[in-house]
């Protein structure tokens, strides 16, 4: 991910927030769009959003920190999110999660950070274990299948 200079970044965030000003309850759509454009919501973004939407910095920070999808730090190079819901557990998701979590570093190229995250239900409960690999949904996952899906990372 390319690093956006702070001044440009704040200008972009302000522009995003301004675009949503006319909507009712614009904060969540604004945060989603900042995530999409910039990969994370930095401290200066929070201040800019609060200013444009006429909210307190504490309120925006509170929302950012409440939801699992919003991250305050830059994202890793790659993400594997594995479902730990009951349906996926019934077909071995806990072991798969533990195994994958334990070898996260080996999934990517040297120096690339790979995040193995837990998620609770992707709505693919009849074809578990389910998970996403860099955001793409996969069913019937196994160690071998994950190896194949992440092969290009190494």
């Amino acid at each position, binding site marked *: 991910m390319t690093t956006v200079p702070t001044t440009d970044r704040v200008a972009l965030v302000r522009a995003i927030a301004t675009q949503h000003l006319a909507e009712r309850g614009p*904060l969540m759509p604004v*945060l989603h769009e900042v995530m999409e454009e910039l990969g994370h919501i930095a401290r200066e973004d929070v201040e800019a959003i609060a200013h444009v939407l006429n909210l307190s910095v504490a309120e925006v920070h509170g*929302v950012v920190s409440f939801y699992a999808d919003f991250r305050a730090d830059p994202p890793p190079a790659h993400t594997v999110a594995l479902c730990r819901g009951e349906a*996926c557990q019934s*077909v071995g998701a806990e072991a798969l999660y533990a195994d994958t979590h334990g070898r996260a570093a080996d999934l990517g190229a040297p120096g690339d950070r790979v995040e193995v995250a837990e998620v609770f*239900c992707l709505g693919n409960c009849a074809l*578990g274990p389910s998970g996403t690999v860099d955001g793409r*949904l996969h069913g019937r996952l196994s160690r071998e299948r994950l190896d194949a899906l992440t092969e290009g990372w190494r």
Partner: protein
Amino acid sequence: MALTGLAGRVFVPGDAAAVSVGADEVAAAFEAAGAQVVRNGSRGMLWLEPLVEVETDAGRVGFANAEPDDATTIVTGSRDGTTSLLDQRGCIGVVDEHPWLTKQQRVSFARVGIVDPASVADYEAHGGWAGLRRALTMTPADVVQEVTDSGLRGRGGAGFPAGIKWKTVLGAESDLKFVACNFDEGDSGTFADRMVVEGDPFTLIEGMTIAAHAVGASEGYVYVRSEYPHAVAALRRAVDAAYTHGYLGRDILGSGLDFDLHVRVGAGAYICGEESSMLESLEGRRGEVRAKPPIPALKGLWGRPTAVNNVLTLCAVPMILADGGQAYAALGTGRSRGTQVFQLAGNVKQGGIVELPFGVSLRELVGEYGGGTLSGRPVRAAQVGGPLGAYVPATGFDVPMDYEALAESGAMLGHGGIVVFDETVDMAKMARFAMEFCSIESCGKCTPCRVGSTRGVETIDRIIAGQNVQLNLVLLDDLCETMTKGSLCAMGGLTPMPVQSAIKHFPEDFQQREAALT
């Protein structure tokens, strides 16, 4: 039956479950082979996905677990007339004649998997908009009465009569009212909301527009969980098309009704499936539960009267208005009227969507439709109604699936999800997970849920470690009672249900820990 030659289109589901096992690659292969591909929803026979259907003069012929390599053989082979489609790998015959489907009674899922979810015209050709057209000729009070007569109850889990909720909103004085659809389908083992929206999104739009007319709302919000990107895309595409064709916006179908519909996306918080948390999130705040009263029907979104309904509740409405409330009420049993969309999930051989009138037994669902476990081992338990639902032992599977019968047996229907476990399941670990899940997903507003869940994990850990098992079981029971009675919402209030049902029905998984150590 001799089938040769492609009569028309090839259907490759764009449903997320089908895509998760390769449907996109299959669709691309069929397009490359020269077929006209429609990305339909899934028929709900998920173990057969990707299930490709080829339009023929005898109906749509299905090919189960299709792979990209099958495309050329099916398209060119059958065009040349050299091979019969029925002899191709994976052929399951005419899909509409598949016994798994013919035994069902699909009302809410009538069009899912059949229509092109991107086409307004296809929706109309399959009976769409008939309910809205009729509703718009009726007074709001008459529409509410029709829904009341149907006996429709909230499909999100609480089972509250939809007509009574709508009547409250209709009767509330306000210059601004809202309709809000709860599409935060976070329960593990449930995917019906996702599938109906991905496969037949106009039904939800029609249901919400009818609701708007019935309660006097001018704006609607759909709150979709972020884990459902395919559904978000399908719904946004359908909303745009509905605006273009005059089914949303100003003066809908010349009736004078104005209704704007917005799609909003959650951000990974299970608690936002609780209606007041969802309203908080829609307003742009942390998804913390609101104390009731006031009820959302009187003070909901931005303090205005709001009809909050689940996706499946709203998707039952078009049919109720098209065919009349009595037709819907004729299905079902007792005070559970109409059909329920059951979802078979977990360690099950044939997982997917089973829509039937209320009253079918859990045994029939798991055994006959589900075909037992995927692993082939005996079924030990099923969790019914999501992470807050009870674990039912295989010996208790004769329970009829309706709101009252399940409640009487100490379980609940919830959103209709059924997660099957085989004999290898460790019920103490599942009980621990219920508490762990609650501790991760609690909004933190009330103490019984926020602190109780963490204490619950610790107590079950001690039981699993064989420490003072009897005393810790008493402590756990006491903790469960505090959570049940003292929590603000169903998150803390129902987390004890899986925990206590596991202890009740599978005591050996808790007691043997002690025996093993002493």
